């Protein structure tokens, strides 16, 4: 149980220190980039130095990346909520199974959309046709998502076995 306490503390720390301010910043920036489009330059000049595309394309890509970031933060929120069930010694609660599935589904989505978005942004903004192979963060996210989905299925089987065991006289 010590490991669970350490994990919960770490996730809480990340949630409070990083995620809450990040959500506020992302939401603020999602509005501010339309009010002051020049604010996008500090992102695009660094990552896409030769890009001279119209501002609405940059706004579109930034909005998509913000959506993906918010989805990732939501995953951490759901994971934090799930850890509470573990602390209450209810690991086979139906919410835990649903939450694991939700996290998996979202992580696979974020990974897949992230890789597609990166691929498209390279074509549109840099004119480069480049496919990243090997260990990319998007691929790791997809693997993690699939792992959570498998974990959800495993918990479903375990819950069924537990119920059967409890009803064995």
């Amino acid at each position, binding site marked *: 149980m010590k490991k669970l306490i350490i994990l919960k503390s770490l996730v809480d720390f990340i949630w409070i220190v990083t995620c809450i301010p990040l959500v506020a910043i992302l939401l603020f920036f999602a509005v501010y980039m339309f009010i002051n489009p020049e604010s996008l330059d500090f992102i695009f000049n660094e990552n896409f130095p030769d890009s001279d595309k119209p501002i609405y394309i940059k706004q579109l890509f930034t909005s998509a990346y913000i959506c993906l970031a918010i989805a990732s933060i939501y995953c951490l929120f759901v994971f934090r909520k799930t850890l509470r069930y573990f602390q209450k010694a209810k690991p086979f609660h139906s919410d835990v199974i649903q939450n694991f599935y939700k996290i998996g589904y979202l992580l696979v989505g974020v990974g897949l959309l992230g890789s597609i978005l990166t691929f498209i942004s390279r074509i549109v903004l840099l004119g480069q046709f480049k496919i990243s192979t090997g260990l990319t963060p998007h691929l790791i996210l997809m693997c993690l998502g699939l792992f959570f989905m498998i974990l959800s299925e495993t918990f479903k089987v375990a819950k069924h076995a537990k*119920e*059967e065991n409890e*009803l*064995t*006289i």
Partner: protein
Amino acid sequence: MPIIVNLDKMLVLRGMKSKELAEIIGITTANLSILKSGKAKAVRFSTLEAICKALDCQPSDILEYVED
């Protein structure tokens, strides 16, 4: 479920109460109630043996198969 538990009938035939049977076979009255109501998913051989011993009967006297 097509398996019917006729524990009630056997208890009446032997003039025994559920509480007494639960004490003899060493299970809780709650578990015996689950068994009687047919909510149980499985019965251990050891439990079945204890019930048969306590009620002096055969497993077929307690369990019955009825088609759905």
